[in-house]
């Protein structure tokens, strides 16, 4: 019965970018639901590096950065409000540093995130079942970090609302495919100077920066093995910023740059039932950015623990898919 608990993997392929594909890092994109009354908490460490990035579409390295490393520690939870409605939350701490040059790295709390996920449709089709899960999310800065300090800044400093649809088809034998697509609406971000120049557009006399919206998508092939105690997933995903300027030749990046990427990842999660409805899991994974624009070509890995237990209602029910 130990079906999947939480799959935090995409959430974790943290921080690719010159900036932060926060939406990739924290948006629940799976089809896992906690039963009513059950809570899952997680602590995940992420490590992400790149030594090449795309300046617009030109791929290059930068001797004044060397290798950029982002490390993160993320606390998360998922709560079964009802069998069909889950609330999720996340709060990452991030540290950035460069191996070369003289620019200072940054560390601190990045963005809070809250999502509501629902099991809207779930029915048997052929040898398996089909499910549709809408997710609404809201994220925003949890500290006064400076978004105008790419690639070191912790995040982009915007409040972002996202709407996502997840479709999953799962065979009874434990093999499944899942796809999701999302649209992210972003508020202006605030920087600490009141004039800046946008290539192709001109000067702006404001400390606010108009942030283009973003779309994202992903597709996953997964399997439950070892009597459903091990979950293995391979994922291909991407984000596409709907507007924004390219970084000019040897210019500094800017929060509203047109950041795109695709990425492939692999993840593992192993569940250890502790009895009485308590379940521990160990997760690990890695990902690689394949294509990009105005982002770093990052290689990331992560590892962490999740712990699931009942807090109200029937405490012995497990999460179900």
């Amino acid at each position, binding site marked *: 019965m130990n079906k999947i608990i939480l799959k935090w993997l995409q959430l974790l392929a943290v921080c690719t970018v010159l900036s932060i594909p926060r939406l990739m890092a924290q948006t629940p994109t799976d089809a896992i639901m906690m039963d009513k009354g059950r809570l899952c908490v997680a602590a995940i460490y992420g490590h992400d590096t790149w030594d090449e990035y795309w300046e617009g579409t030109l791929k290059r390295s930068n001797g004044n950065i060397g290798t950029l490393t982002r490390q993160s520690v993320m606390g998360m939870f998922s709560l079964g409000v009802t069998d069909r409605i889950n609330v999720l939350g996340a709060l990452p701490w991030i540290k950035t540093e460069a191996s070369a040059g003289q620019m200072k790295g940054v560390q601190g709390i990045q963005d809070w995130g809250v999502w509501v996920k629902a099991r809207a449709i779930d029915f048997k089709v052929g040898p398996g079942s089909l499910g549709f899960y809408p997710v609404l999310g809201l994220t925003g800065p949890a500290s006064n970090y400076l978004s105008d*300090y790419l690639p070191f800044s912790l995040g982009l400093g915007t409040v972002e609302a996202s709407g996502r649809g997840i479709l999953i088809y799962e065979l009874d034998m434990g093999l499944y495919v899942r796809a999701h697509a999302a649209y992210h609406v972003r508020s202006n971000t605030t920087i600490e100077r009141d004039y800046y120049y946008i290539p192709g557009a001109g000067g702006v006399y404001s400390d606010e920066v108009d942030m283009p919206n973003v779309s994202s998508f992903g597709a996953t092939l997964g399997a439950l093995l070892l009597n459903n105690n091990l979950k293995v997933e391979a994922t291909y995903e991407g984000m596409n910023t709907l507007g924004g300027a390219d970084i000019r030749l040897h*210019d500094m990046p800017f929060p509203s740059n047109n950041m795109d990427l695709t990425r492939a990842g692999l993840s593992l999660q192993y569940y250890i039932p502790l009895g009485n409805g308590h379940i521990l899991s160990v997760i690990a994974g890695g990902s690689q950015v394949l294509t990009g624009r105005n982002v770093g070509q990052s290689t990331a890995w992560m590892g962490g623990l999740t712990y699931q237990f009942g807090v109200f209602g029937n405490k012995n029910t497990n999460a179900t898919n």
Partner: protein
Amino acid sequence: MKKIYFLGTLAFVALAVFQACEKDLPTSLKFSPYAYESLDENGGTWKPVLLDSTTQIGIPAPEDASSAAYQAELADLKAASSDLTSDQEKAVAYWSGDGLVRWNEIARDLAAKYNLPPAPKPDGTYGAPDPANPSSIPNFPFAHPPYACRMFAYWSIAQFDALIAAWHYKYEYNRPAAYKTDVGINTHLPQNDLPGYPSDGAVVAAVSKRILIAMFPLEKAYIEELAEEHLNSLQWAGISTESDIVWGDSLGRGVAGKFLARAGSDGMKAAQTPKPISDSLRVAAKAQFGWQWDNLEAPTRPVGITPYFGRVKPWCIPNVEAVRPPVPPAPGSAEFIKDAEELKEITSNLTEEQRKIANFWSDGPSTYTPPGHWNRFAADEIVDHRLNPLRAARVLAYMNMAIMDAGISCWDAKYYYHYARPIQALPGFKTILGTPNFPSYTSGHSTFSAAAAAVLGHIFPAEAAKFDNWAKEAAESRIYGGIHYRFDADMGNEQGKACANYAVDVAKADGAE
């Protein structure tokens, strides 16, 4: 369940709507065309900066107001200014007649656009912008602070001299504004009693066009398009007839030509020296003082930014030696250690307020540079005080003369003393601002800002304390950014003031006070 969906969807839609309602961010100063606080009727008697005399560039006497030719111009103007499209109305309000503040903004945007250091090539070398072939990579120009301060200076001083000449001809020929002769003309800007010939707006457009195209040759088509719209707006506004515009344009072009001739021989062509000369400055400093600045970028830039900018011809200071600051504290001396320790202490415990100050004044690549920042402040004052274009050009001219002189003096000190930046002198030291590609002592921001503040404080004495505080904050910001020692900043402030004193002395004697 349905309720939750509904609320969720509502929240998402609400955010999307909220975003749609976010106001457009301003791309220029918002102000309504204003009536001038004074007309400076004797402005034609003021002393120009570069012109030998106010009449060095001549324009003919205009046709009499009663002549058939002028009556035909009035009829054309009446036609052009009736039934404006909304785009024409917008253009009239935007240029607001003289257009001086708008052209200053355009110059700032161009400075920002071209303020991009050359990129390293795959083989690790750097290309250099080539004025003879501006579209080769890297594009010409690289509008770093010395380039930008010189651009603002030529643009604004040429405006000042050209407008003094325009005022002279306005009152010498004394042809009333079109709307005074034909009260049936529907004007879309505040009227005044300035004689209409030549058009001050056309003078400003012509000077801007010639100077800015010379400074940013790749922007020729863009600048010409703007100038054409500006000139058209004078007719749409119902304020300038064709001959007002044609001869204003002629006067502006002629005056700009005199300034471009000076610019062609002011030494700027040699400012970005070849490497052997640049190296010789380093060797000389090492021999004389025992230290040298090195560029720490990877790959290393072979030459700093404009080592010979200190040899460019100044406007008001007699020579760089007259305003050269004293020798900076030797590395390892008690005075050095005190400021170095302070720098380390500040940057490792930087408060949010200090970070904000560092960023607010950063004015680095892809910005209008510190001289542009002060032009913005000056433009704000010009609008606040409802200055006429002649009076406004005077503010910008003296401020930018002082800024450029301060830049020349600062660059002289930078390459004469060749002093190491904190990242070079302090092992392991890291910064939140990028360290620029020129020596440390003295701080350019501090020097530019103090010079600008001193001139603005002289012209707007009631606000002198505000400008002075800004200049001090700009200086302090470089310490917070980790790229200057306090002695760089303090001495830069003093140096800037010393340079500005010469400009203020010239201003006091030009007949405008």
